[in-house]
């Protein structure tokens, strides 16, 4: 029982990170129907920039804020320089562009920073908290709390604010959105900036636990995507639930089946979901227009 609780805690912690990546996917997907394979690089940048700004002497909160803002700016630049110019291109082209961006960012990070693993001090100490016979790190609570806060914020944004509804309208039909006076260019800027900022936040929160290096992005992007798909693409509720579920599956597999195949879980989940219910847990069925 204690072991189970321990696996659940670690699963939910990792799952919260996947959820944050998946939420980032969701925002961009909602605004533009683009799946951004560079999403994981935002997480990496959040962690790396914070680490190096902190090493340079900035206090941790300031370093983290700087990292999030810088990554958001990069997200906006990615949209302006690489996604917008290729609007209307086939899905393969857009996939290649975002993967190209991910390789470019990774290459630059390796050059600007280094190839080492880096950590950050935990925000509220390293003393484990005992809960129900198992222990959880205070930093895990930060990660889980961060995912919940971002989720609630996004939910309110998309359902309660005019700007959020403008984002949804843009994803539904860009031309119609323009016709009713929505500045779709600005909506895209907002979506990419917000998505990158959320990714960077995930990087800042999780670095004290899992460390960060220039190449952590690819794995996170794939896991985040698996989570988003599990929950149903484009649905923030689905992203959160999908992330946590995926984290739990992984932790339980590592604990009870085989730690070698822990990494395989995400992809088995993807394949299973796509075969059994391609719309995910919270998605809606779609039809193709000729």
């Amino acid at each position, binding site marked *: 029982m204690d072991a189970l609780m321990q696996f659940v805690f670690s699963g939910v912690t990792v799952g919260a990170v996947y959820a944050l990546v998946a939420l980032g996917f969701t925002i961009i997907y909602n605004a533009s129907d683009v*799946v951004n394979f560079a999403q994981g690089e935002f997480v990496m940048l959040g962690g790396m920039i914070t680490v190096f700004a902190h090493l340079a002497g900035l206090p941790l909160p300031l370093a983290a804020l700087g990292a999030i803002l810088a990554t958001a700016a990069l997200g906006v630049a990615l949209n302006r320089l*690489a996604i917008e*110019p*290729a609007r209307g*291109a*086939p*899905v*393969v*082209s*857009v*996939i*290649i*562009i975002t*993967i*190209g*961006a*991910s*390789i*470019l*960012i*990774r*290459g*630059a990070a*390796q*050059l600007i920073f280094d190839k080492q693993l880096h950590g950050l001090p935990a925000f509220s100490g390293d003393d484990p908290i005992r809960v129900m016979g198992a222990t959880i790190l205070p930093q895990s609570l930060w990660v889980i709390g961060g995912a919940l806060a971002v989720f609630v914020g996004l939910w309110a944004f998309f359902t309660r604010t005019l700007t959020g509804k403008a984002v949804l309208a843009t994803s539904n039909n860009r031309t119609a959105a323009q016709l009713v006076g929505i500045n779709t260019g600005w909506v895209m800027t907002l979506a990419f900036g917000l998505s990158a900022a959320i990714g960077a936040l995930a990087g800042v929160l999780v670095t004290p636990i899992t460390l960060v290096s220039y190449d952590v992005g*690819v794995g996170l992007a*794939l896991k985040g*995507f*698996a989570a988003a*798909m599990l929950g149903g*693409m484009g649905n923030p509720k689905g992203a959160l639930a999908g992330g946590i579920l995926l984290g739990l599956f992984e932790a339980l597999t590592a604990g009870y089946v085989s730690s*070698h*195949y822990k*990494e*395989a879980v*995400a*992809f*088995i989940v*993807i*394949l299973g979901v*796509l*075969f059994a219910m*391609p719309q995910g847990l919270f998605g809606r069925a779609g039809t*193709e227009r*000729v």
Partner: protein
Amino acid sequence: MRPSAKWTQLLILFLLIALLPLFFPSGYYFRVGALIFVNGLAVIGIVILTGYAGQISLGHAGFAGIGAYASALAPGHLGLHPLLAVVLGALVSAAVAWLVGRPILRLKGYYLAVASLGFGILVAMVLGNERALTGGPDGMAVPDPGLRDLLKDLGLKLTGGEFWYWCCGLCLLIGAWAALNLQASPTGRALRALHGSEVAARTVGIDVARLKLQAFTISAVYASVAGSLLAMQNRFITPDVAGFMHSIEMVTMAVLGGVGSVIGAIFGAVILTLLPQVLTVFADYEQMVLGAVMILVMIFLPEGLIPSLARKLRGRGE
């Protein structure tokens, strides 16, 4: 496509393969050439799947992995001749593609991309984790097919590099010939109809599901044979051959050169294979350059280099 266009393309390819060695200053270039041909062969598979049928796969390196490890394992464990091992690898790849393709190909766009990606990564993971059989992430040695010794007995002495250059060049020609034939066949026309509009293709009586599955299976065989050739010429193989980056490389090569055209896609393989060789001096910048090239070509030459350039050369006549 007009028959003459097919033979023109094959002739250009043949002349390039046959005449380039005249300009090679050292044996090293034969190795690079052989690598280009192997990549070109895999990329032709992508042309059939993506260029003809309009389906995406981000997991084709999985099939290259199956082919490579068939070449590495079958001679020792099953006592097969290395050439039969290549055939076995191709058969296994085709069977796996047929089984995996049935459910996967119902999906479209991003969903198909991610499902195939998941498949590729699972193959790489199995190859990396089953240490007892595959040697794990450290890789394993691959037996030599012994063809070079056979040629030596016949009085034809080739260095290892030269032998694989001609061997892979021949395979590439055969692969290109088969793909161009397919394009000109009724199946090829049906595939392009499917590419244009799946619904429309179905309404004119094309069995869409079966056709997609055929394209997927054929392209898997291309990737598998390419994987086998790579393993045999390097005499060593690691699970990276089935990895995510290798899948991405394949698709990028195809899209870079022009995914709708066999010659174009092979040209893409030439560029992306040469890039790291040229950039060895700037090894630190290799990834950045690769990423930038991917983005720029997709934005400015969305059809790929060769078709875009061909259109420019022909002017507005087409």
